[in-house]
């Protein structure tokens, strides 16, 4: 009878898949995939900016300061190397975030200034670009939320027993996530509708309460 051997084999198999190695792999890949999507959408936004700046320049050339700031912020974003490895390097991750946040701020300033130019707002080309920027900001928010969830899942996976032993053995570290500050900024995307009273306020301090992405129950 070879039952003892079979039982042993079954035990070994279940142990192998029970040590969490496969789970870590799945979670890790999920983080990578969602991070790629975040990068993708940030890139999409950066690609829209030259066109946007050009169109705005045509109507509002003397808003030089705002336009320059957007262009500079975009250059800075391009300067930070956006690689998939970023998630494993907290410092570079923070730098990347800072650059992207600066661009978000500059961009929302630009879209606020635009409110003063009815001709620009009526321009079909500008309206299309504006729709694309809005859509892309929303895509970024969605991608970031999904990334946050994936990292949470991954971090829990590598921290619980016995996965933590496996993780240590294979060198899987907890990954960097977006901080709450970032989410505050993200919850107030460049709003297009602002009345004159709030125009002077910096967009990052808009009074809208930030939505906690972790509580949105997706």
């Amino acid at each position, binding site marked *: 009878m070879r039952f003892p*051997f079979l039982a042993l084999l*079954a035990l070994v198999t279940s142990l192998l*898949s029970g040590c969490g190695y496969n789970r870590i792999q799945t979670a890790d890949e999920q983080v990578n995939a969602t991070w790629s999507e975040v990068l993708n959408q940030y890139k999409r936004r950066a690609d829209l900016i030259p066109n946007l700046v050009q169109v705005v320049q045509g109507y509002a050339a003397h808003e030089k300061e705002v336009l320059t700031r957007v262009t500079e912020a975009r250059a800075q974003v391009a300067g930070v190397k956006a690689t998939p490895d970023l998630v494993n390097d907290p410092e570079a991750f923070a730098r990347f975030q800072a650059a992207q946040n600066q661009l978000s701020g500059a961009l929302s300033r630009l879209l606020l200034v635009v409110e003063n130019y009815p001709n620009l707002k009526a321009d079909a080309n500008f309206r*299309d670009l504006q729709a694309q920027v809005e*859509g892309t900001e929303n895509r970024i928010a969605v991608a970031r939320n999904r990334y946050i969830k994936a990292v949470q899942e991954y971090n829990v996976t590598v921290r619980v027993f016995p996965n933590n032993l496996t993780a240590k053995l294979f060198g899987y570290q907890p990954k960097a996530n977006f901080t709450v500050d970032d989410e505050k900024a993200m919850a107030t995307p460049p709003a297009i509708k602002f009345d004159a009273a709030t125009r002077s306020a910096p967009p990052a301090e808009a009074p809208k*309460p930030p939505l906690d992405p972790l509580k*949105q129950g997706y």
Partner: protein
Amino acid sequence: MTGASARLLAAFASGLFAAGLAAAELIAVPPLQTRVTDLTATLTRDQAAVLETGLAQLEKSHGSQVAILLVPSTRPESIEAYAIRVAEHWQLGRQGVDDGLLMVVAKNDRKLRIEVGRGLEGAIPDAVAKRIVAEVIGPRFKEGDFYGGLQAGVAKVQAAIGSEALPAPAALASTPTMDLDTVFIVGIVITIVLGALMGHLLGRLGGSTVTAGVVGTLAWLASGSVPAALIGAVLVFVFVLAWAPTGAGDRRSPPRASSGGDSRSMRRVSSRGGGRTARSASSGSLSSDSEGGGSSSSSDSGFSGGGGDFGGGGASGDW
């Protein structure tokens, strides 16, 4: 009055559906039952039915799933956050094609959003969605003509989807997916138990063939991949052949030479039997699969999402 009843309905839906998921203060995602979900009692039954028929027609001809949701308000969330939450729950559009589209109207907020599935972002880019919102639907809503606005919006969406080359409808049967770990472990257990049992009953060759057939079929059903199932079946066959206990099948005829003949004939019989069960099982599952897919997508009662993915594309506006 209508607001209160809608809130009641929403509360009921939340109890049914996403109570554990959504935080208490957020508006719950209503269950997807029809293509037009009106929690504000804005549309008459006939109007909803007309919209519904049009959308069903669209799915029949192009495969794309379009749904409309009217809620009183999305507060405290923005309409964007609420719409993507609904889209993720409802999973409109075919899996892999991601050709779903969701129109959300927050009546009391006077806000409107078209959420476009990933596969439709080419047919309906943000700029087009924005134009539909701002130039087609918005003006009609401003006049209080919700039905007319939705109808005109749907017509534009239909035209845009119609001009896009999408896979033919009902081309994709949904394949059930299971956790790989589970499949693996269940497969091992079945192999051991069935291998031992069949080894006893049919002898080594017969037992391993039947076991391999059964496990292979199950693996195919679980993973939806034929090569993986074949490899699994071969592995199981070799494994059981090598390690299964010798049992009744061999014991029945003590002399060794005739036992070999016995098991060979047994193998032929059992392999044919195994093959037949596998084939009939597979064809049965195939037909039931396609039936399921057809009925879930084409019949008007009981509408459900096809597993499409949304990436946050689309446009919002107000009126």
